[in-house]
């Protein structure tokens, strides 16, 4: 038991206690001094009276669902190709796709800024091809820009669990389907796809959960229209200095994430997927 106490104690003090203190902050009047010890339901009132907060929460959830959807859509065919057609080199080819994800997150976002900007690479290319007459500024500083950047960031992580679920499909099941007269697309729809569903679900989980609280990408490529719920939280702490409000917004997000985790946990083994690190 003495082995377990150092890690357990660390997580208790620096993970659970902070969350409990934060929860207690939601019913305080202000950030510092006496106000930080006075009971108040002001933040709850602000939250319920301003539809803007909850609308942004909804937008963030929609964005995280869209990100997961497109990331899986892009990742599935490549995982399928690697497992069924790439032979012995499939692990190396998979690693090759993961490598970009190991480089600085901020700098990859910066790269997208350079691509999507009005003097950016995309506009330059389209202009030179003659497809457009003048720079189209819509690419940068919009929700679409946030979505594109997030999908870019998460595609490799969506590919991993799908790859591993396809790897586990026993080949003789596919042979059996084909022997019984199934056409290739039939055996894909009725054997491969259902059997890879746990991988799709895991990919969905590991993309949607972290993106729902995302605030850095919206800050850098989203502009005014692209800000997300995570930006609200960050703003309460770094500019508005309304910690009770920020604590409440954080708790709402945390509860949503925990409920999602509990639902997912019935279908997916977190520790298993987490082992891909």
């Amino acid at each position, binding site marked *: 038991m003495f*082995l*377990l106490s150092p*890690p357990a104690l660390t997580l208790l003090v620096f993970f659970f206690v902070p969350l409990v203190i934060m929860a207690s902050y939601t019913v305080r009047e202000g950030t510092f001094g006496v106000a930080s010890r006075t009971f108040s339901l002001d933040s709850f009132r602000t939250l319920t009276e301003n539809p803007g907060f909850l609308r942004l929460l909804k937008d963030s959830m929609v964005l995280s669902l869209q990100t997961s959807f497109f990331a899986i859509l892009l990742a599935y065919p490549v995982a399928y190709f690697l497992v069924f057609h790439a032979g012995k080199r499939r692990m190396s080819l998979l690693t090759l796709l993961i490598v970009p994800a190991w480089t600085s997150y*901020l*700098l990859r976002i910066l*790269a997208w800024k350079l691509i999507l900007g009005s*003097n950016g690479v995309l506009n330059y290319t389209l202009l030179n091809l003659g497809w457009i007459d003048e720079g189209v500024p819509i690419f940068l500083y919009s929700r679409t820009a946030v979505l594109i950047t997030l999908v870019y960031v998460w595609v490799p992580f969506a590919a991993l669990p799908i790859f591993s679920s396809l790897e586990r499909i026993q080949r003789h099941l596919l042979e059996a389907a084909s022997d019984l007269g199934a056409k290739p697309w039939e055996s894909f729809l009725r054997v491969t796809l259902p059997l890879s569903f746990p991988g799709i679900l895991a990919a969905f989980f590991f993309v949607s959960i972290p993106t729902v609280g995302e605030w850095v990408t919206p800050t850098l490529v989203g502009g005014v229209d692209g800000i997300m719920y995570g930006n609200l939280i960050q703003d309460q702490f770094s500019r508005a200095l309304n910690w009770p409000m920020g604590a409440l917004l954080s708790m709402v997000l945390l509860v949503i994430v925990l409920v999602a985790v509990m639902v997912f946990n019935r279908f997916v083994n977190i520790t298993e997927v987490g082992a891909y690190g």
Partner: protein
Amino acid sequence: MAEARVAARWAGAGYYALLALFLYMPIFLLIVFSFNDSVILAFPLKGFTLEWYHELLQAEELLASIKNSLLVGFLASAVSLALGTLAAIAIMRFRFRGRDTFLSFASLPLVIPYVVLGVALLILFSALGIDLYLWTVAIGHVVINVPYVMLIVAARLAGFQANLEEAAMDLGATYWVTLTKVTLPLSAPALVAAFLSSFTTSFDEFTLAFFLAGTQNTLPVYLYSQLRFPSRLPLAVSLAAVVMVVSILILLLSEWLRRIGAGASKTKGIK
């Protein structure tokens, strides 16, 4: 049939190439711009220069932030490695009441939004009257890294039989000797991989550092502050090129060690 398979294979290979291009293009772009002789990061390119790399070596704030990031990275990874390994040994080699509960709770930092953890720790440190400094960032990084270390080391422990340890103890070794002479050496590749994985996570982590660094800068915090000034971007871009190449090398090493670490057996969950 065979023709359809060949066609599918080529279509798949083509799609793979396109996706790889999509994933690598932004990185190549940054590297190209890092040699571009212009303050404005846009096409057409203006000519080749090493000026940005030259300036990089003289940017003192930047070098200080790299030093800070290295410090935080080493500190956080060393502590995470120790704590995560203890947790992994406890859950893999002992059956105890509350084991499953511990496993679930210890995995929670894997799913918490970093912005939530960041502000929660900010509130904690302020409630305790602790000044924000580099080591408060390190604490945040320890919290998010311990579950990863635990899972990586546990996967390795699952890969070799506990009876090697039992044999050592049957032959008279104490538990401590068994731990240091059998368990840890056998886990060495996983330990190195876990350390490198923690280190790179910590080195690149922005949100927690943003809330917990106080007046200090880690590299991502410094970069973030520079992204607002267009004239400083070329410097950031040349730094990007260097950081990317170095982190890719480190992570390839770590991935290679993890493969050895997990052994021939496939990495399975530990529930």
